């Protein structure tokens, strides 16, 4: 990567790390929330649903600002976390948190749609064979929604790779810590003549995201083909 400076390679690595962890860590929660929204009726369900969608509705800057208000070291939540040894403010973990939150609605929606498409009669069949609800979930529902999970994860990863507004607002744009690829692009776009450097980074994002996309298509198709037979 001779045409990438060390700072840019750093930004790329950071972006990958942030997006990867944002996706991986939020996936179990996303599956759980999607399942709850799809299959359970409980008070506050619509509130949860609204909360999940919030990052989509809010301008990213606002989300970032709210995160900053919540998780800065002076705020109660931030202080509790800091006492537990988890500092997210101005760390790459914070960037991952922001990216994960921004991507969460996309992930949940995709997974939820898949869950709603699973015939509850199959889950019932699992129950009659002795599998408890969590077991049915793991052995029946989960494999059947795999295409949806992959779709959700890849949407989330792509979104995380492109996320910028909330991230820069929350954890700033510190090279090596919180300067992701999009933040670097932003910085380049703020100065005269930065366009070509910005485009270089954009192309890298595209290549990576497309690679992830192709991979997910392949895995998703295989998962779907398994269900469709042969």
């Amino acid at each position, binding site marked *: 990567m001779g045409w990438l400076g060390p700072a840019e390679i750093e930004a790329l690595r950071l972006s990958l790390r942030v997006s990867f962890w944002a996706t991986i860590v939020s996936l179990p929660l996303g599956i759980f929330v999607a399942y709850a929204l799809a299959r359970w009726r409980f008070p506050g369900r619509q509130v949860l649903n609204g909360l999940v969608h919030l990052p989509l509705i809010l301008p990213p800057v606002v989300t970032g600002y709210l995160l900053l208000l919540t998780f800065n070291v002076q705020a109660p939540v931030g202080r509790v976390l800091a006492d537990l040894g988890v500092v997210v403010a101005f760390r790459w973990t914070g960037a991952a948190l922001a990216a994960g939150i921004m991507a969460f609605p996309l992930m949940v929606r995709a997974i939820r749609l898949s869950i709603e498409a699973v015939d509850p*009669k*199959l889950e*019932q*069949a*699992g*129950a*009659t*064979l*002795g*599998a*408890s*609800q969590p*077991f*049915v979930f793991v*052995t*029946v529902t989960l*494999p*059947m929604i795999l295409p949806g999970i992959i779709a959700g994860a890849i949407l989330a990863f792509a979104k995380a790779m492109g996320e910028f507004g909330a991230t820069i607002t929350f954890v700033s744009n510190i090279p090596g810590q919180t300067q992701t690829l999009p933040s670097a692009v932003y910085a380049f776009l703020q100065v005269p003549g930065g366009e070509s450097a910005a485009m270089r980074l954009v192309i890298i994002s595209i290549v990576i995201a497309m690679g992830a996309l192709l991979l997910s298509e392949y895995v998703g198709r295989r998962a779907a083909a*398994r*269900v*469709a*037979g*042969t």
Partner: protein
Amino acid sequence: MSLSVQISHRLPGIDLDILFQAPRGVTVLFGRSGSGKTTIVDAVAGLLRPQAGRVAVDDWVLFDTEQGHWLPPHRRRLGYIFQEGRLFPHLTVRQNLSYGRWFAPRGARRENPDHVIEMLGIGHLLDRRPAHLSGGEKQRVAIGRALLASPRLILADEPLAALDEARKAEILPYFERLRDEVSVPILYVTHSAAEVARLATSVVALQDGKVLRQGPASEVLADPSVAPTGVRAVGAVLEVSVAAHHEDGLTELTANGVRLFLPRIPHSVGDTLRIRIPAQEVILSDRKPEGLSALNVLQGTVESVRAGEGPGAIVSVRTPAGTLLARVTRRSVDALALQPGKPCHAVVKTVALAPQDVGGRVAKS
């Protein structure tokens, strides 16, 4: 083990009000399409929560709405063969078959998978997924999946409907064995009189969500007014024991000392069996018939003549072997002057006692 079922449930399509006690063995739910059979089975399985009711196997209560007791389906240890298969599409046939085994308690009776697979003829399908199986193949895998779950209660909703006669004949003995040897209570839905006669310990005839009649198979089937699948299902059930196997392929049975012949059956000499003699397979004669190809002729006296609707009548004939039923025309009733007390001969074609109508060993109840 006796199964007691009481269910009250209102649905837009049907008002269910069910109460029956079934002795150990196979309880067949019998009734026309839409009469509520699957709904009852679902309630027993716990897939439907009835508005009121109680289901218990002996004193193991599956649910009791009055006491607020509710065992979730996965705690009921079921082998439910669904009317529509419900195979797991993402698992291979092999994985489908072994699904229930993960959850069976250690001590549970285990079926031999190889044996079940062979009986069902699905050995060549083990590595395929269900999507492209034929209708009958799916159904067979579904049967296998339920049987291999080491169930304490088997629910079979028209398990053999999609199968050809030959395959049915291979699978039926297996259910008999479950009934007789393992004494798993079985709730069995079918439209086939042959299956009823062969398997049923007790028959529950349903109509529009209500129990029309309930009782031992032999009684319900002998009553032309309820036989839910039409007059062809009427017949007598005799208890017999295997006397000998003859070289020409016939098996000789004795029923209270009376000899009966039928094509070779796989049971051993000395075994006690139930056989069903459909009423329409019996011809009555006012004298001893001679020169007939039918090998089984039983002497007896007419006990009663019940004229049904239409041109037929059911004549019951007390013979030393037991009471037989014969379905004859009213014209014949007149011609032979059949009336209670009249001596007559009942002619039963040997081959009419086909293997399908031979029950397994009689359970010691």
